[in-house]
């Protein structure tokens, strides 16, 4: 349940996303709305809110697949603000990057593959499939269990063509790149990223359902709106159940992510991160696929928005833990196997 401040934030972001599309939305989103600094402490130019507020903005920008690196940048702001105990009050390990994140001047991306190694404060290796990597000025990088921040200028970035054209990917090569050690552990960072992908997917799935239901109310065949046919109504009802469950699950994970770090909240996040990502992205995938089918031929066209959601869903499903990998992870972490 949103607090009143979160509800106001949600309304402001939704309103913004209704008026601004395309990459050029970035400057106002970061500047005017201050969304990239939501989880950055005020002393570094942010608003000192937190991950729960970032989640609200991620969901709303996710609903419209706003083609800006919001999720990764805002989350990098949160992660680099944390010290080793998850606190954000003192001197932040990533202090030098935070003002840039808060202002929007610095866009960030997460490189959490396992092929990069650290030695003497320098990173070596290649990270493929870095989401939002093509336009990033900063990478948050896993090397072993530790997390580092590396300026893009110290790496070789190779942008990739992507199935989902609303979010870039890059292969990032580190050749002895100077790195700043972050306080946050790599595993926590990846679980937080999973939580945000879950929230984004829940929002996008809700949008797909809204659009589809709207279409079924107006598309007439056999002399009536096709939404009157039970074969379609029942499928929409099942999708509504899934979307409700996805949002509930995503926000349960957000609560775990935004709780003060403790052994209990860390254990909860370790389960709910992969659990929420798996459930919410699977729901998103199902709703997006049904969106195309329920729209009929128009849903198969390039012009219609449905394909963008299908491609985003599949991309989110295959990165940062496939469904099968996440199921195994949940199973291990929950003590089922």
């Amino acid at each position, binding site marked *: 349940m949103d607090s009143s401040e979160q509800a106001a934030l949600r309304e402001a972001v939704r309103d913004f996303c209704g008026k601004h599309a395309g990459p050029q939305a970035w400057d106002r989103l970061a500047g005017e709305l201050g969304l990239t600094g939501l989880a950055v402490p005020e002393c570094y130019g942010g608003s000192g809110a937190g991950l729960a507020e970032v989640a609200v903005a991620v969901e709303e920008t996710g609903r419209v697949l706003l083609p800006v690196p919001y999720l990764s940048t805002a989350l990098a702001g949160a992660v680099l603000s944390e010290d080793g105990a998850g606190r954000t009050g003192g001197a932040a390990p990533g202090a030098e990057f935070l003002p840039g994140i808060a202002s929007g001047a610095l866009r960030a991306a997460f490189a959490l593959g396992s092929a990069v190694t650290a030695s003497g404060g320098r990173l070596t290796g290649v990270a493929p499939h870095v989401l939002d990597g093509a336009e990033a000025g900063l990478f948050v990088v896993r090397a072993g269990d530790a997390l580092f921040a590396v300026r893009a200028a110290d790496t070789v970035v190779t942008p990739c063509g992507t199935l989902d054209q609303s979010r870039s990917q890059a292969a990032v090569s580190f050749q002895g790149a100077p790195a700043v050690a972050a306080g946050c552990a790599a595993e926590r960072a990846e679980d937080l990223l999973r939580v945000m992908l879950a929230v984004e997917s829940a929002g996008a799935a809700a949008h797909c359902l809204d659009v589809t239901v709207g279409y079924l109310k107006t598309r007439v065949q056999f002399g009536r709106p096709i939404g009157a046919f039970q074969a379609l*109504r029942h499928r929409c009802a099942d999708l*509504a159940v899934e979307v409700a469950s996805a949002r509930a699950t995503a926000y349960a994970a957000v609560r775990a992510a935004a709780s003060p770090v403790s052994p209990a909240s860390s254990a909860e996040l370790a389960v709910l991160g992969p659990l929420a990502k798996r459930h919410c992205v699977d729901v998103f995938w199902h709703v997006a696929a049904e969106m195309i089918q329920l729209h009929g031929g128009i849903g198969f066209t390039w012009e219609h928005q449905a394909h963008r959601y299908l491609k985003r869903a599949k991309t989110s499903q295959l990165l940062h833990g496939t469904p099968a990998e996440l199921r195994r992870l949940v199973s291990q972490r929950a003590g089922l196997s």
Partner: protein
Amino acid sequence: MNDEQFRAEVRGWLTTALASPEFACLVGKGGTGRAHEFVAERMAWERRLGADGWIGLGWPEADGGRGLPWHRQVIFYEEYARANAPGRVGHIGEQLVAPTLLMFGTPEQKARFLPGIAAGTELWCQGYSEPGAGSDLAGLRTRASLRDGEWHIDGQKIWTSLAHVADWCFLLARTEAGSDRHRGLSCLLVPVRQPGIEIRPITQITGTAEFNEVFFDDARTLEGNVAGAPGDGWRVALGMLGVERGVSNLGQLIGFQREFDAVLAAARGNGSAGDPDIAARIADAWIALQVMRFTAEEALGGADQEGGVAAGGVAAGGVAANITKLLWTTWHQRLGELAVDVGGPDATLAGPDYGLTDTQRLFLFARAETIFGGSNEIQRNIVAERGLGLPRG
């Protein structure tokens, strides 16, 4: 008293009561697929619950309840499930009839019926479904006419849970001759033990009987025993269906967790947990159980404050209970299937007199859950119409 103190009070009471010689035999009894067990003892248990003030927690204090908010009621149901306390025989009165009387009843009716429900001394059944009126409830044909200060009732009801132990029946009947569909119906409060009523149990796929057929042959009730105005029964009947917001469902989830734990233990015990397919289904069942819990919590919270996050507007349409029902019934059915698959070939054997294991009972009885209380197809219609605003077919 804060929530944790309240929880401690509930837990303490349950522990003591279920350790008493009279009720110790009831732990874990009367649950899924075993409503036929220990009926007399469970009726006594109902009276103990009532005597100690555990019935009607959410009713207003002026009407004999405790006026507790929903989350306190949830705490009660959670602790009830955690204690493995017996399946209730008084829930129809407490959770359906009483809230309906609170909405539609006269002061006299509330004074007459609520104390018996709160004390656990008067049990209720619900007479809605008929052989020709299942999902299409408005097609019902049981009729009642007023003569000499009494309603005279003729017809037949079916799938009536607990009719064989109930004192009263909350009966939907056609009271205006020549009316059809939703018009001319009334909700009558009918004493069950009388010459004009005959009850026959229905043997179901478990070999046991939890539902009944109820035949009315000039059965009677007093003229004043009608909830709401005569002829306004459809509105009252729908009001009853709307009062179930799923408060008890959160408690039910603890029972589900226990059943899941038993399946997991069985899979580890016989080695089937090492089978990748079974391991995946176990993980999926556990994940879905957590998802169901989050959804139920959010739906309930959202029901108190309009526009809960979870349903994203769907809860605002009042369909949270429908969403919850679709989720738990299908989950429970899958768990039953997983349970017998974990059991393997041994799960195909039955004991003497068709004695079944808990696993087999779960597997079989769960088939009823997607049908009763409004079939899942009807639930989907409601979600589509009221939650999503899709046109009627």
